[in-house]
């Protein structure tokens, strides 16, 4: 029984001004439609170009449900190919990363492809003459995603040939990427430290939603951040504040503080918390770093770059970045009730190692499957995934600080506990789900 396929109106009705229907989170048919439409109409993060630094370097991942390989072509550009042999469908690149040289070779029948996907050769060509092969899709090679954009190292792809342009889709929100990259004295990031992979039995949008949810840390994370804060308060006076305490304690900031931190709302579901101040604002200075930044940019510009304390910038559909600690989280959809969360970290090229050390500490304390913060978040998502099946009220509520005037406003700074970015997430969801229906 199909309730939503091909019915744009039914899909739009799932998103009210300040409420979202539970099917958006629990319905498998909608999930399949997301894979088919939403993840094809939008610019989805693929990977960072430092993962494929040299010609022939490749990295395999997914865009929604699509297996892809990101590869550095012989012309120096990063290409994104669907990772299947046009012959029998075998995944050509089998490992997460590696170097394939100038060609991909299918391990099943040795069909060979250039790193832009085009078919280079078959091993035993007689037998294909006059068969119609040369006009078949197989003769075209591995399917290349035409719309790929490398923004300062961050590689995005849009699977559908038609759709919004990259700049049109992201608009002013790219300033958060700029700030993260500018924090390197060399203006360059490198993926570093390894990736944390955390399996969540919940819908991917629960994680998206959580990124600008400033009314949960002091509640859900009382057991972790609150305990760390209480224990730290018992430490003898004069004890140097450990990095871990600096990381944990701001999670316990009261509502008033989160209100004052502010939220910036962009179009298309993008936005960020921490406009004026954030939980990352009061970290200790890293010795030598400011001098390196001043040498690279001049004092005024260095101060401007470092005074941005953007907390979480969420990019629709499925990533979040933290500029001040060089971290990117990717929410990979697997099914309506299953999501793989990958937390990637970056080295600021030419900056002190201690910055990467802090980034990695943050990542394992907050985003690891062993994290006491992550445990309570996941508990909430999983309870929601189950609880949403309750009948009687089929709507998820997002009324906090809703004002109908917001429907026509763009690029706005608002109170830090506003659920506006969440509402925009689902407005964008309805738009990009139905754009090509």
């Amino acid at each position, binding site marked *: 029984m199909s309730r939503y396929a091909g019915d744009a109106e039914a899909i739009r009705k799932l998103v009210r001004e300040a409420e979202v229907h539970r099917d958006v989170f629990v319905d498998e048919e909608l999930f399949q439609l997301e894979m088919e439409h939403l993840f094809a109409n939008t610019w989805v993060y693929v990977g960072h170009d430092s993962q494929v630094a040299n010609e022939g370097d490749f990295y395999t991942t997914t865009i929604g449900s699509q297996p892809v390989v990101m590869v550095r072509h012989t012309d120096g550009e990063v290409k994104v190919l669907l990772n299947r042999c046009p012959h029998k469908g075998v995944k050509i690149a089998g490992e997460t990363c590696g170097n394939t040289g100038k060609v991909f070779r299918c391990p099943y029948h040795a069909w060979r492809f250039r790193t832009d996907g085009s078919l280079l050769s078959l091993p035993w060509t007689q037998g294909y003459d006059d068969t119609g092969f040369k006009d078949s899709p197989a003769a075209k090679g591995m399917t290349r995603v035409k719309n790929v954009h490398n923004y300062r190292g961050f590689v995005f792809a849009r699977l559908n040939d038609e759709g919004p342009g990259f700049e049109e889709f992201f608009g002013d929100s790219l300033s958060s990427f700029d700030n993260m990259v500018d924090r390197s004295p060399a203006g360059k990031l490198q993926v*570093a430290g390894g990736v944390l992979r955390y399996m969540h039995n919940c819908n991917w949008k629960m994680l998206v939603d959580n990124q600008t949810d400033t009314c949960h840390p002091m509640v859900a994370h009382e057991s972790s951040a609150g305990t760390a804060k209480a224990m730290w308060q018992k430490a003898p006076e004069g004890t140097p504040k450990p990095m*871990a305490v600096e990381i944990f304690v701001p999670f316990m900031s009261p509502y008033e503080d989160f209100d004052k931190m502010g939220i910036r709302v962009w179009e298309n579901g993008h936005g960020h918390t921490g406009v004026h101040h954030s939980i990352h604002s009061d970290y200790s200075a890293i010795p030598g770093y400011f001098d390196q930044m001043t040498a690279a940019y001049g004092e005024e510009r260095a101060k401007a770059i470092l005074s941005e304390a953007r907390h979480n910038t969420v990019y629709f559909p499925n990533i979040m970045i933290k500029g001040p600690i060089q971290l990117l989280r990717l929410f990979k959809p697997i099914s309506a009730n299953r999501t793989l969360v990958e937390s990637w970290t970056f080295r600021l090229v030419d900056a002190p190692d201690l910055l990467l050390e802090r980034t990695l500490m943050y990542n*394992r304390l907050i985003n690891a499957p062993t994290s006491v913060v992550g445990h309570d978040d996941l508990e909430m998502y999983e309870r929601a995934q189950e609880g949403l099946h309750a009948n009687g009220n089929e709507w998820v509520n997002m009324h906090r600080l809703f004002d109908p005037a917001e429907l026509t406003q763009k690029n706005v700074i608002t109170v830090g506990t506003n659920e506006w970015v969440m509402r925009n997430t689902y407005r964008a969801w309805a738009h990009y789900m139905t754009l090509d229906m």
Partner: protein
Amino acid sequence: MKRNDPRIEGAVPSDKELVDFVLREARMLDQQRFEDWLTLFADDGYYWMPLEWGQTDPKLVCSLMYEDKLLLSVRVERLKGERTFSQKPKSRSHHVLQMPHVESRDEAANSYVMWTSMHYVETRNDEQTLYAAWATHHLAVEDGKLRIKLKRVDLVNCDAAFGNIQLFM
């Protein structure tokens, strides 16, 4: 300890005492005697669960856990909390250890390394997950008692995607 009074300097643990220590440590975890378990760590002790196969750097390569006694104490304290939602209901654990092996002993340096292959089960609600790992204990005698300077847990699938791992392996 061999020299009868354990408080005397240079007390040396026997192999059996080293083995018993490792077995007792796992038993404490399974019995959820977390406060007692913490006392097994030296003040500068660490618990390390690498993320990478054969990882050598705990600081510039990410780990699942790399925690000093303060962070371990936060975990133990949190497990007791009324608002520790991911522990309502609580998890339980079960260790099966292969006979711990004395990897090296250096009495002069007061350094003893134990190597133990193990299966670890963690369970909560209706879910039960099996992990296979090797534990490496770096031990030293402090005030006459064996203490953990470093407990390293290498999962055979350290780079896999995991759900919650909430207790200690």
